[in-house]
């Protein structure tokens, strides 16, 4: 589904990603973790071309992200993405947030888009809030709307960029529950997250990054039981201490 092949990226002299390669199979859930500044958010943003990269290539469902002739908008329309800060459109109701891209990008008619939007809003348990504006919802609710907004586009895979990092602790679980449900239904997912409990429960594989490199890429049992690199061992020791 997603193949990342020797991707490197730099801003001027600063190397952000170095020779990153991995893949995500259909129906697989891959968690990407690592210390801040390790390049994990940049890597996931390269997958749908939000961040350009200088070397290597990424293929999503056979389409090259790096190729100049690729229509990135067309590709992104079917790759769902959820951001750390939700990024709902604050000047629109929740209903319109869910319909906008369906109408403008997928050319669905208004009623169809609204119906589809309400269906996914119901699935994340927020059907009653359709008429409200994003500012009237809690952070956890906004993030669930953001997930519903991405799902309404019928994505072939979902990218999550630290979806719970900006949330109050008591709201993290409601978002993780939605993500878990999605994973159990067989959605292909790539998640940048520090939620190791989620990784243990839901992920098939875990990628550990440090200084722009993929240091570990293993199935989760092996990763948690026996991380090979010293850096990953330190990271896990710190993060699992509490």
């Amino acid at each position, binding site marked *: 589904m997603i193949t990342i092949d020797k991707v490197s990226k730099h801003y001027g002299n600063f190397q952000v990603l170095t020779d990153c390669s991995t893949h995500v199979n259909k129906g697989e859930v891959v968690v990407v973790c690592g210390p801040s500044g390790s390049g994990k958010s940049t890597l996931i*943003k390269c997958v*749908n071309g*939000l961040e350009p990269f200088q070397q290597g290539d990424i293929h999503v469902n056979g389409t090259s992200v790096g190729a100049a002739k690729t229509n*990135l*908008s*067309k*590709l*992104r*329309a*079917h*790759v*769902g*993405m959820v*951001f750390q*800060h939700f*990024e*709902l*459109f*604050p*000047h629109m109701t929740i209903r319109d947030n869910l319909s*906008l*891209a369906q109408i*403008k*990008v*997928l050319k669905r008619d208004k009623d169809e888009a609204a119906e589809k939007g309400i269906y996914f809003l119901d699935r994340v348990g927020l059907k009653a809030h359709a008429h409200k504006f994003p500012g009237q919802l809690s952070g956890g609710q906004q993030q669930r709307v953001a997930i519903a*907004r*991405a799902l309404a*586009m019928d994505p072939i895979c979902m990218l999550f960029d630290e979806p719970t990092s900006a949330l109050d602790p008591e709201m993290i679980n409601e978002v993780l529950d939605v993500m878990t449900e999605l994973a159990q239904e067989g959605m292909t997912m790539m998640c940048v997250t520090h939620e190791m409990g989620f990784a243990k429960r839901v992920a098939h594989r875990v990628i550990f990054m440090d200084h722009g490199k993929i240091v570990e890429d293993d199935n989760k049992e092996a990763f948690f039981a026996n991380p090979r690199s010293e850096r990953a061992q330190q990271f896990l020791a710190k993060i699992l201490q509490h």
Partner: protein
Amino acid sequence: MFGSYEFDWSSIPGSLTFLGQGLMVSLEITALAIVSGIVWGTLLAMARLSSIKPLAWAAAAYVNLFRAIPLVMVLLWFFLIVPKFLESFLGLPPGSDVRLASAMIGFALFESAYYAEIIRAGIQSVPKGQLAAAHALGMSYPQAMLHVVLPQAFRNMVPLLLTQAIILFQDTSLVYVSALADFFGAAYKVGDRDGRLVELVLFAGAVYFVLCFAASQAVRYYQKRLQTA
């Protein structure tokens, strides 16, 4: 202080129709300059923020040029040049009255430089993540700007845009250089005709004050409501 000067306001009532027509000209120029200033200003602002360097430079040059020369000179140039241009371009007979058109074009081009800066700041006030989110949903750059970024930018800018509109309305009095009968021009003409320039200019000033003060109070009210909403 006024010595033996005796005020005589009697020439005003009879001239109200003429003055009203002048006011309409002022408002017409204001409205057109606002609309075209915002449209052209938005394009300039987007060009200035563009990653295509020549486009950004051209827009910056335009904005800096118009912001660095006095409005009255721009109007005078347009008064002298545009009529000739329109005559040859539209095939109008020589001597056609295109003063209103040339004043409007001059204003639109001048004001758009100011609007461009307001709108640029407005666009930059929208978090970058909004554009990224719109892109991530498959929207093209024009779609993302039109449906996501600009509506938020304009909402943030409304008070500034209205304030600029009030300044613009006052600036329309400068079209007197082209002897166009805007409100100020009309008042001046009446005063000149009746030898009552002092009264007419005072009257015109009072009307400008009332309209602009009322408008700025309305902006303040709107701003307060925006903050509490």
